[in-house]
């Protein structure tokens, strides 16, 4: 992943008390609750690295049902190796995919609870 790791420290809004820092290895919760979720199905259970901290934002899982989204949730961008996300990925090993994940969907890598 070295080719694209010129990581910027941007936080776009304050992120008080954020649990993870840039470069931390994280696993996306392997959970399948009903309701409006912004964590794509395909990324659940996958391991990546925090690429940047976006800040804190109203929780979309609450906004979706007419509530105010408080308390806000810390939002990160997480980088994944494509050949980890997609078994049989056809491109080279250095290809990557990144997306935004809220803190409550993240676990420290190595946490047994994430293993499915």
């Amino acid at each position: 992943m070295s080719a694209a790791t010129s990581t910027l420290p941007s936080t776009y809004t304050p992120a008080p008390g954020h649990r993870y820092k840039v470069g931390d290895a994280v696993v996306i919760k392997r959970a399948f609750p009903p309701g409006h979720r912004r964590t794509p199905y395909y990324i659940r259970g996958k391991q990546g690295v925090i690429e940047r901290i976006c800040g804190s934002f109203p929780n979309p899982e609450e906004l979706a049902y007419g509530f105010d989204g408080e308390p806000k949730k810390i939002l990160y961008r997480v980088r994944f190796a494509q050949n980890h996300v997609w078994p049989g990925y056809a491109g080279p090993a250095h290809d990557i995919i990144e997306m935004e994940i809220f803190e409550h969907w993240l676990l420290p890598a190595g946490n047994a609870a994430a293993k499915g």
Partner: protein
Amino acid sequence: MTAPPLNKGPHDVGGEAADAVDTLDHGMAFWEKQANGLRSVLSARRITRTDELRRAAEDLGDRYSQLAYFERTTMALRTVLLEKGLITEVELKAKMDEIRARFNVPDEMESPLIQAAQK
């Protein structure tokens, strides 16, 4: 084949097999521009929230993939406006009937719909 993925919404399509991409932009119909303008005003004024409209679209289930983009956003807006009590089903039906009447073709013999039906 195993059981379908638990609680996977019709919108959550990343990773699914699909056909080649039609790389042309087919633009938007006038009504779609108007529907987009309406949605944008409601969103900017915080009358509806984007996440509510997304959720209402996702809740369309199988219809989600059958409808075009602005068809499902229109259905989603209907759901959210009803939920918020900003409109009622009775009002909406009456207004839709009124608009249908407004679009009537004056000369039935020349109506493209009737001509098409007679072919």
